Structure formats: C-alpha cells, structure tokens
C-alpha cells in the first residue's frame, strides 16, 4: 500500500514534469513569435517606421466635406457656405496666452466678447491640438497684418474655411434652424471619425433634422510634415463627399412676406399646399439672426434675447401651443352633423347664454343677447358660441376627440419638422392623469368653442385646414421637396388614413359655411375677402387669455395690458373651388381674429395666388 502510493506519487510527479516540458516548448514558441514580430517591425521595417515617425512625422489630416446646400421650392438659396478666414490659436503651442492675446489686440480689432468666448472655448474639453477660433471673417487687411507678423505669433493660425451663411437671416431662422460650433457635450456623443475636421453641427430646425445627410463624409490626406508642422508631401488622399443638397417645399417670397406681415408682433404663420402637404411657409416672430450662431453670438446680445419676455428663440409655429378658439368650430361642426348630433336645419337660440341642466353656471356667447335663431351654417358664419356649447354637450367628449384626432390634432403628423410640440386633444384619461379630476360636462362645453383643455400649434391648425380643404384626403405634411440623396425621398404618401364621412355631401356644405365666414352678410370676416379676384374660405378665432371687460361685439372696452389681450387666430384656404394653399395665422395678444389675423391671411393669399408666376416651374 505504502509502496503503491509512493509509486503513484512518483508517477504524478513525472506526469507533471512532462506537462511542464510541453508548456516550456509552447512558451518558447510563443516567445519566438513575439521576437519575430519585434524583429520584423524594428529591424526589417525599421526604415519605413523611421520615415513615418522621426523628423518627418506622418500625419493624417481630415478634409472637411462641404455641407449640403438648402434651397426653397424655386431653387433660391436658403443656406450656403461662404469662404471665410478665421483667426485661431493652437493652445498647446502657446506659452503665455494673455500676452499673446494682448499682442493680437494690437494688430486686429478684438472685442471683449470675442476674448471671453475664446477663453470659454479654451477651458472646455476639446480635441488636443485643435485650433480654437478667436475671430471669424477676417478682412483682407487683417489677413495681411497677421501674415506679416506670423513669426512673432507662435501658435496663431489663419485658416480659410467655409462657414454657413443664411442669406435671409431672421425670416428663416426657426424653420431652417442653424449650425453652431460643436460643444463639449456633443463632442462626447458624436462619432469622431464622421466629424473629423468638422467644427459645426446642426443645432435646430432643418439643419438638425437632416444633420446626418447635410454633413457629408469627411475625406483625409496622409501628409509628411516637418517638425514645424509644415506639409512637405501629400502621400495619399481621399476626397471628401459633399453633403446632400435639400430642396425644401418652402416658398422664399411667401415666407418673407409672412415674416414682414408679423412685423412688431408675436405670432406664427404656417402655410401648406393641401394636395402635397408641402409646407410653403413656417414663420415665427420675433426672431433672431441665425448667422450669429455661426460667427459667435456676442454674449450681451445673446443674454438679452434669451431673457426677453418675447422669447425670440421659441419657434411659435411648431412649439407654441394655443387654444384653437373658434377656428375649431368647422371641425367640430363637421363631426357633429356627420355623426347625427345635429342637422343642417336644426336651429337654436339661447339669447347669448347657455346653461347645462342642473348647473347654475352660465356659458356666455361672445355677443351679448345672442344671434337669434341660428342653424349650423349661421353658427360657423357668425361664430355662435352657444350653438357649439349645445352641440358639444350633445356630442359628448369622445366623438369630438375622434374628429379632432382624424384632423391630426394632439399628435405629430409632420414628416421632418424638427421637434414639434403635439398640442393637446384631451380625453377623459388624459385629464385624470394630468389634473387628477374627472372630465366634466362643462369641460366638453368649453371644448366646443376650442377653449379649455384643448391646445394646438399653428402647424397643426394649418395641417387640419389643409385636410379640410382636401375633403379629408391626407398627405404627409413635410418640408422636403426633393434631394439628390435618394434615400430622403422615401416619404409615406399619407401621414394617417383619410377621413371617411357618413355623408360625403357634408364636405361641400361645411366648405360653404367657411366661405360664408367671408362672404355671408354676417360673416365674422366679411370685410376681408372684399375685392379678392379668387374665392376663399376661412374661420376666425379669438382665444381668451384673461377675463376682461368686453363690449357687445366681444371687443375689449378698456385699455388692456398687451399680455392680457386675446390671441388672434385665422385659418383659411383658397381658391375655394380648387384649394392651392391652406394656412393658419396666430397673433399672440393681437386682439380679434377677424380684425388682426384675417387681413394678414388675405395679404398672403394675394401674394401666393396673384403674383407673377416664377419661371422655375
């Protein structure tokens, strides 16, 4: 036993030794592989690597692609790239930054804002050896002065680069958005390969929405440089691919006109081609100059704009959410009559005051004493509130929600509008979740005149108007017209299913009521269509902001502070028999929809329908 165990131990020892010997051979073989590899790199390929490294360093320099251009529907440039000389500093090569900047101020005009912005960028995380811009758009004279002094200015560079320009400035600031320098946070998130050599990135609007395709693909060149970084020889080069050009549905002239019409106001205008869903105009005012984002916003101006109560950075057309007010009436009226909750002949007369059964609260009409006996056509023409209080009460919430949903309220139906707000098309569950209360009959009554919980953006309102003009046929509301990048043209035909009425004749009749708003004897906007060589249809809306004293026509009696005045709304489409354009106008605290918003719409329709045809199409 003892013997056997000893034998066994000896056997195990020998087994281990043999295995260790095998391991030793494997270790030796692996060692040889390493030595061979090092020998190959250091002895055989030494000269090649020496050339790459030693005095003539091999560098891979990215070549920034040209950002795609943006045009309007007639081929007018909306965003382009212009050459600019930029003064920048490679911080790693500077010993005393303050002294250098002081020296530069002797040569070139530099504002305190520019110096401050430079220091802010200096202290942010960035790619090592990346030049930090100090001043863009140098003049010829400044370039010459800097060139003459370049030996005394270590680390200073003057580079020619293409920078983004928005020739139409403020008018397109919200819809196009803008590019700005890549900031610290973006730098950490984006793909360094795709953005090699690129300093700008789309931040808002179309520039952001289509960033990936506008960007293009960076090229690179492999260069030999000497110790001072001068390029001696380009070894190999891959050209960059320019970004895709975008042709938008926007109409430059119409957009500019809309922008001018909102001069001095706060508001938004959205116009759509009903047949295609193409967005012709998307304006928000007040605005800002997007070019300042490219060249660097002076801090004082930026702070002033940011803190302004008028919120110029807010895109009211897509992010501003307003009560639809009376502009909602044709939509609810259509839903009500088609759903059998009222008829074209039924009349009501509440003498200007509507009450729910067993509820003392009085829902007043905008007109004291009411409008007399009115049917649905009258109710839209004259914007009779009590008729719609009653109709909404008859319908209850769900059918109203349903028809509004079919018209695209409360959701995003746009294809490529950047970051739109969705508004609110309320449901019982929504109110319970949001406010913790049940839905009351009174809420439905208020909804009947587009007040209360419902909110819409001007964009949604314009889309709904376009679908109304189309007799319920949907399209995909979008900014894209066409692009040389085919993949962008893969756009669904419809954003959602067409609206099917129980009685198709109701389309013609509801259209008639909207024409009566402009042509009827009592139409709320009867003065607006006067003399127009085309026929159009519309609806006014006046959204209450606060309880204020009103006269018998609903107009404010006293001098009311601006921010408490009503919002003025107007929706319209034209020509009535074959709609080419549908639009929504919202003027914040503008007063009455018929007096303020409707005339703006008229001027826009004139511009679009009556101007000399452009030769582009």
């Amino acid at each position, binding site marked *: 036993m003892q013997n056997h165990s000893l034998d*066994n131990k000896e*056997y*195990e*020892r020998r*087994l*281990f*030794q043999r*295995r*260790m010997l095998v*391991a*030793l051979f494997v*270790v030796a073989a*692996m*060692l040889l*592989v*390493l*030595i061979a*590899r*090092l*020998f190959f*790199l*250091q*002895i055989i*390929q*030494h000269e*090649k*690597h*020496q050339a*790459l*490294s*030693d005095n003539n*360093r*091999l560098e*891979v320099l*990215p070549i920034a692609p040209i950002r795609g251009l943006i045009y309007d529907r007639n081929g007018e440039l909306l965003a382009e790239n212009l050459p600019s000389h930029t003064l920048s500093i490679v911080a790693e090569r500077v010993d005393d930054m303050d002294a250098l900047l002081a020296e530069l101020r002797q040569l070139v005009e530099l504002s305190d804002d520019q110096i401050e912005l430079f220091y802010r960028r200096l202290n942010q995380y960035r790619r*090592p050896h990346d030049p930090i811009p100090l001043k863009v758009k140098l003049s010829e004279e400044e370039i010459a002065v800097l060139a003459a002094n370049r030996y005394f200015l270590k680390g200073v560079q003057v580079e020619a680069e293409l920078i983004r320009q928005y020739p139409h400035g403020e008018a397109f600031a919200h819809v196009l958005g803008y590019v700005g320098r890549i900031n610290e946070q973006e730098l950490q998130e984006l*793909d*360094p*390969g795709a953005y*090699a050599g690129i300093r700008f990135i789309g931040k808002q609007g179309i520039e952001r929405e289509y960033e990936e395709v506008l960007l293009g693909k960076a090229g*690179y060149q*492999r260069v030999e440089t000497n110790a001072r970084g001068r390029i001696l020889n380009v070894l190999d080069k891959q050209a960059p691919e320019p970004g895709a050009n975008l042709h938008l549905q926007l109409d430059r002239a119409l957009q500019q006109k809309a922008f001018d019409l909102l001069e001095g106001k706060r508001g938004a205008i959205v116009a759509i081609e009903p047949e295609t869903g193409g967005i012709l105009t998307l304006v928000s005012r007040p605005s800002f100059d997007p070019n300042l984002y490219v060249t660097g916003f002076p801090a004082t101006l930026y702070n002033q704009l940011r803190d302004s109560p008028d919120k110029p950075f807010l895109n009211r057309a897509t992010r501003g959410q307003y009560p639809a007010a009376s502009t909602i009436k044709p939509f609810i009226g259509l839903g009500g009559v088609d759903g059998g909750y009222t008829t074209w002949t039924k009349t009501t007369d509440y003498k200007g005051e509507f009450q729910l059964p067993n509820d003392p609260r009085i829902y007043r009409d905008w007109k004291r004493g009411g409008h007399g006996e009115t049917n649905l056509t009258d109710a839209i023409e004259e914007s009779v509130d009590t008729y719609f209080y009653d109709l909404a009460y008859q319908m209850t919430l769900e059918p109203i929600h349903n028809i509004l949903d079919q018209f695209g309220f409360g959701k995003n139906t746009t294809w490529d509008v950047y970051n739109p707000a969705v508004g609110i098309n309320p449901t019982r569950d929504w109110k319970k979740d949001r406010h913790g209360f049940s839905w009351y009959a009174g809420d439905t009554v208020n909804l009947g005149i587009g007040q209360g919980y419902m909110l819409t953006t001007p964009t949604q309102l314009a889309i709904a108007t376009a679908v109304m003009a189309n007799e319920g046929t949907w399209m995909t509301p979008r900014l894209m017209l066409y692009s040389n990048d085919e993949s962008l043209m893969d756009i669904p035909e419809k954003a959602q299913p067409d609206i099917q009425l129980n009685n198709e004749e109701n389309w013609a009749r509801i259209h008639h009521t909207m024409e009566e708003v402009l042509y009827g004897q009592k139409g709320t906007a009867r003065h607006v269509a006067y003399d127009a060589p085309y026929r159009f249809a519309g609806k006014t809306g006046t959204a209450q902001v606060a309880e204020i004293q009103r006269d018998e026509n609903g107009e404010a009696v006293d001098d009311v502070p601006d921010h408490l005045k009503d919002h003025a709304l107007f929706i319209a489409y034209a020509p009535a028999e074959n709609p080419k354009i549908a639009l929504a106008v919202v003027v914040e605290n503008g007063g009455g929809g018929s007096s303020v918003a409707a005339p703006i719409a008229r001027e826009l329709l004139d511009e679009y329908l009556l101007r000399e045809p452009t030769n582009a199409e």
Partner: protein
Amino acid sequence: MLSDFVRHASRDSFSATPGFWQRIHVDFYLFLLLLVLAAGGMVVLYSASGGDWGAVTRQSVRFGVGFLAMFIVAQFDPRWYQQWSGALYLIGVAFLIAVLVVGSGAKGAQRWLVIPGVIRFQPSEIMKLAVPVMMAWYISRYGLPPRLKHILGAAILLAIPFVLILQQPDLGTSLLIAASGVFVIFLAGLSWKIIASGIVLGIGSLPLMWMFVLRDYQKTRILTLFNPESDPLGAGWNIIQSKTAIGSGGLDGKGFLLGTQSQLDFLPESHTDFIIAVLSEEFGFIGVMVLLALYVAIVIRGMVIATRGRDNFCRLLAGSITLTFFIYVFVNIGMVSGLLPVVGVPLPLVSYGGTSIVTLLTGFGILMSISTHQRV
C-alpha cells in the same frame, strides 16, 4: 551561476540548516528578478509619463504595497491556501455577483466595486488568484491525471467566474482567468484527445462567438487589427501609432526621453497598456530583448519552483500562476505590436496602475510560499 539558479530550490539545498532567505520565506532569485523588473519598469514609466515624478512616486508606493503583500503571503504554508481555497473562491464569486448588481464603471462596463470612503477595487482581480488556487485544490484532491467527471466539475467551477466577468463585460480578463484554470487542468495531465477536440471545438465555435457573444466594440477592435488603415483617425489610431513607435526604435532606439512618438503625444495610453511601445522606441530591439529576457527568467524560475513543488497542489498552482504570468506578457506585447486585438491587458509590473501590480506580486508571494515551505 546557472546551475546554482536551478539548484537553489531543489530539496537538497534545504537539508538541516535552512538559509537566511528560506527562513524569511523569500525566493532569492525570484525576488531579485522582480526587483530588477520593477526598477527598469520605473525608468520606462518616467519617460512614458512625460517626466512626471508624481507618477513614478505613486508607482513605487504600489510596488511597496505589492512587495509587502508578497512577503506576507509567502509566510503562510501552502497547506493554508489549500484549506481556504473554497472560501476564497466563494468570496470572489460573491463579489462578482455584487459588482453586476451594484458595481460602477465607465463606458458601459461595470468592473468596480466601491465601498464609499473605504475602498474601490475590481473583484475580477481576486479571481485571478482564487481561480488557480481553487482549481489546483479541486484537481489535486482526486489524483492525477484527472478523470472525466472531475474535468467536468472543474469546468463548471471555471465557467462561473468566466461568465460573470464576461457579463461586466470584460472579455479580456475573463479569457485570461479561464486560461489560468485551463493551465491547471492541462498540467494535471488532461488527455491529449480532449485537448485536441477542445481545440477543434474552439475553432468551430468562433463564428458563433462572433454572432452572439462579442459586442460591437469588441468586433471593431478585431476588425481594426486586420486593417487599421480602414479607420486611421478612429479605432486604428492606437495600433498605427504603436507600430510606428516600435518600428522607429530600430536596433538600439532613439535614446531615453527622446522617443518622438511618445514624447509628442502621438502614442495613446503610453504609460499604461502601451508602455512597451515607449520602451521599444527609446531603447530599441535590444531594450525589448533585455525586458523579454527578464520575463523569461522569471517564468523559468517559476517553472523550476513548480516542478520542485512538494505535492500536486503546489505544483499545479505554481505552474498555473507562472504560465498565466507569461500569457499576460504575450497578450500585452502581441496587442501593442499589432498581432492581437486591443483587449486592455497591462504589461505585468511595468504598466502604470495599482491593482494589477498588487495582484501579480501576491501571486508571486504564493510561488515563494511554495518554494520555501518544502516539507511538512
């Protein structure tokens, strides 16, 4: 000299009166080699960190801690490790589970366990020692060569930490830990048939690994290895720059502190994982060969200690620690010179960084314990 080197650990030399080194349980040659390696490594680190004495000082503190741990660990008889192997293993597994639940880390990986204000460590480091100890204990219980059911048992013991570390995810470390366990089974006399079929199976499962196990960033690293020029500014940058650094060093290098690649910041991670590129650039082929010779001497010394081990447990454990150490060297140099994908393995005892130095020196402490506690 050489014969003395080999003989020192032989049983004969520990006859009646044990010498000074044996009394303090330090293997003299191993200790000497480790000291030389540490000192040389610090010279390279001084250059790689751009002449930063702070980095060198912090590194020497870590070596101090590491050598102290080595000295303490060497005092215990190997029997002690045999007894506590199961507990060590279970604690390690518990920590690994904890790290997946509450661990913290960067870039989507959870590797660190933090007890705020007390300590911050990677539980996978414990497993680098716990796995070979556990495997050596388990295999040596049943005698050599291991039978099939014990091989399967060992495979399960190995699979648990492997899968847990893979989840962090840390493919490099999990593979290295798996290797340390496989070495134990191999040294125990795993039959060649099983080894051959294992290799065939391993190669066969590569496509499956590619499709289901590897994460995107791991695939990128592998693809970059084959064609670094495909993305010269992104993923290929490290490889291109480290190959250039190594190659431009030539036979005798550019001289201490004169490597342009490393001193001009072309070489990323120059003081951690890629430090061998700094050595190669500044001291050339000759410098790397000296370093490799040091590593080989340590490995051979470890093999001698393993072969002279008093029982199966000691031999298997010492063998596994030694071979794993070599694998670290191989993987690091292979990855920096563009033979292997970049997996984040530091160069043992040279790269800047605390945990790996302490773990490695603790492992050498176990080797010294085995070498200096001969007879019960």
